[in-house]
């Protein structure tokens, strides 16, 4: 089954025909995915549509049974989240993945701590705290995130600030793609706006963003394109400029067929081989 398909190198990330079965349960069935460079792509879908499975496959947290993921047109295979990180894909998971008792800097560098140069670092394994604090402060400043001190423990921050730190960390380490799994789900209105502004700034810094969200107003406010997931595969990909909110919901729930909306797909979909 050689797909009559050439990966599009202009896309930051692309996936063709991703499939994942758990015994009899089909979590993903021939799912396609495309993320243009420098865009914010919203991924929507009803509960159980398989959004999480798709995102995990893209983030390396799950190995699909079949299908292929491409980065900049090059095929990649992730066997762990670390593999995805190494090619520049960072994920902010739904459960706030910050250690609340550690400070902002320690969280930004957790698992990737910088050691001092020379013998101090190589033999005595001493942390270069000064350098890490400097870089953390720079990163927070570049993204317009204001905190009293980068030495503040996360538990002293508001929910929005905590999420901002998680996003800033992903943006700092992600060289290509930042995947955000419902980053505003636990936040109030004001904090949600602040995090959305932050996501826009991440895009301005040249990163491509995948945003999983349940909030249609939020999606229409920020997304360049909307990937609608249904029954384990992409039902449609649309532009918020040409498709109204109620149609997106209708396709998502199956009330409208997927060809009833104007497709905003950039690359031809993979030929279904089933």
């Amino acid at each position, binding site marked *: 089954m050689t797909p009559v398909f050439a990966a599009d190198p202009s896309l930051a990330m692309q996936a063709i025909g991703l499939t994942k079965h758990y015994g009899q349960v089909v979590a993903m069935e021939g799912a396609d995915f495309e993320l243009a460079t420098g865009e914010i792509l919203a991924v929507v879908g009803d509960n159980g549509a398989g959004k999480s499975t798709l995102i995990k496959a893209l983030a390396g947290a799950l190995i699909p049974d079949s299908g292929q993921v491409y980065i900049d047109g090059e095929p990649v295979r992730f066997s762990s*989240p*670390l593999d995805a*990180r*190494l090619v*520049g894909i960072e994920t902010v998971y739904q459960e*706030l*993945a*910050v*250690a*609340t*008792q*550690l400070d902002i800097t320690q*969280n930004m*560098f*957790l*698992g*990737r*701590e*910088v*050691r001092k140069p020379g013998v101090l670092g190589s033999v*005595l*394994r*001493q*942390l270069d*705290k*000064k350098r890490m*604090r*400097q*870089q953390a*402060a*720079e*990163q*927070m*400043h*570049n*993204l*317009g*995130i*204001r*905190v*009293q*001190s*980068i*030495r503040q423990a996360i*538990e002293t921050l*508001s929910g*929005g*600030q905590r999420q*901002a730190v998680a996003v800033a960390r992903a*943006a*700092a*380490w992600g060289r290509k793609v930042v995947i955000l799994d419902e980053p505003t789900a636990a936040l109030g209105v004001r904090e949600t706006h*602040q995090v959305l*502004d*932050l996501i826009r*700034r991440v895009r*301005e*810094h*040249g*990163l491509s963003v995948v945003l999983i969200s349940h909030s249609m107003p939020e999606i229409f406010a920020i997304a360049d394109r909307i990937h609608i997931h249904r029954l384990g595969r992409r039902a449609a990909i649309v532009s918020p400029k040409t498709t109204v909110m109620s149609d997106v919901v209708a396709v998502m729930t199956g009330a409208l067929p997927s060809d009833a909306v104007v497709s905003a797909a950039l690359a031809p979909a993979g030929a279904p081989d089933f």
Partner: protein
Amino acid sequence: MQAPELTVATVPQPDSTEGAVAAAAAPPASLQRPTLRLFAYPITGPLFALIVIFVVFSLTTSTFMNAGNISLIAQQSVVIGTLALGQTLIILVSGIDLADGAIMVLGTVVAGSIASHGDAVLAMALGFVACIVVASINGLVIARFRLPPFIATLGMFTIIAAAARLYSQSRSFPVTSDLLSVLGSGPEFGTVAVTYGTMLWVALTLVLGYALNETPWGVRVYAIGNSPIAARLNGVNVTRVVFSVYALAGVFYAFAAWQALGRTPIADPTGYQIANLDSITAVVIGGTSLFGGRGGVAGTFIGTLIVVALKNGLTQAGIDSLYQQIATGALVMLAVGADQYLGRGHRA
């Protein structure tokens, strides 16, 4: 591990105050001075308690507050204090070790028995090996096979206590080797004896304090105690770090065994039966949270001194040792209560 370079996009961002995530009133992110935060957590409570104990016993007894007795308190601290360093590490990753005293006793018996008819260096090496191997088995079943630390180490406690007696056939081994008992000696200044054991205890505290506060491994230990999920999602190998914690604790138990032979040059398989509780007491009184992720070795150092100074002072005041146990028990409950109610045990 990735390249240690933050790949921040280079476009300088105009400082858009409207979009700032924090409250506008918050001062801007400021760079802090790179101060050495070797012991960066609250030890003021334990320190205050220690001072109160010293003041009370200085006023109520005539023998407590003199240089000779202070150096005695230090000497009485070294065994529990060294054990408590290993215990601190384990409690920092939300674990507990009920077997630490038994492992130490096994170490003394192994070393003592071999030294009684053989080479002292070999005896000491095998004593270290015994402690590290047993502690590593604890680490394996807890980190790899996910047994609850309380149950795993309770099981190990009874196994090792029995094994030490079987191995020694319930005999004690007087230790005559200079090497094995060297930690009980040291320079003396009149009534003040600064033993090598005391120096070793201080040195081990500093080394562990450095490892916990100045190395990537230390940050990860705290992160795991705080939130194992966050640590794992950030690429920390939680299983490996937790295993390393238990194995390293074994090294401290081995040093504690050496300290024990310096204090009392007899390897007795029935000795130090409540050393496990004493070590946990020292850690908890020192402000390390049983919930993990908070505390450290400076607190444990002070906590050890509190436990020992309290016993020493009550003895000087002529109070029955059973009352001393009641006092220590009450102190533990007070410390754990403070941990709970001051919100330090709460998960954010």
